[in-house]
């Protein structure tokens, strides 16, 4: 278990990426899986800053990683507002340019790129996002 706390601003994303790549490497993920984990965590942290805290420098992001035999578990904690992930529509991935949106891809990316994505909201613990990436052989 390794943990680190980062200030809730976009500048932190580079450091968060290094931290998470390092953990993913140690967990034995292949290089493309490392990239997908980096992407999912970037999307999650961006959402915490943008939506949960509703802006930069409003709060912190706690990041913990558990390296297990089966893969990597990532836990992100923040003290911003909760939300209902079930209410978020899946983005439109086909159709003409004018009907496509640059918004609404983050959650979709997280779900597509990680094997498990779970949100827990609690007054005491704050918002907790748990994401798991399995190694190839532990999938399915």
């Amino acid at each position: 278990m390794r943990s680190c706390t980062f200030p809730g601003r976009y500048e932190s994303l580079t450091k968060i990426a290094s931290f998470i790549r390092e953990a993913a490497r140690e967990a034995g993920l292949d290089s493309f899986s490392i990239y997908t984990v980096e992407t999912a965590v970037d999307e999650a942290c961006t959402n915490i800053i943008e939506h949960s805290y509703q802006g930069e420098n409003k709060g912190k992001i706690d990041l913990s990683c558990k390296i297990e035999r089966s893969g990597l578990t990532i836990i992100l904690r923040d003290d911003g507002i909760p939300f209902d992930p079930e209410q978020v529509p899946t983005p439109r991935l086909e159709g003409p340019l004018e009907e496509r949106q640059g918004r609404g891809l983050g959650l979709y990316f997280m779900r597509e790129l990680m094997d498990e994505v779970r949100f827990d909201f609690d007054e005491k613990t704050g918002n907790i996002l748990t994401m798991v990436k399995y190694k190839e052989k532990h999938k399915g």
Partner: protein
Amino acid sequence: MEITTQQYKHCDLVWVSGRLDSATSPQLAAALQAITDTGRFKIVLDLSAVEFISSAGLRILIHAQKICKRYNRGQIILTNVPQNVYAALDLAGFTTLFKIMNDNLTAVGNI
């Protein structure tokens, strides 16, 4: 992140390096807008040196593509797209919205 822009007669070539995330994407947005604001809508975007792109980076691309393609004025062509960046474009369903070419010469010649 570094961005360089080369203006040709027919188009502009933009080269961007490093991470395209929520922190840095506004710089790319500004560089592209600087071009479209002068009435130039044919842009070749060389992604060879992009290490990482998040949905924030993709958002910039699709927004700029809408600006460029409006009224058939032009387009953004992507070149030298690294495998990881391509995977992100693909996941977002964006690969059909951009011409993707292997080299800048082909893109500049055909835009």
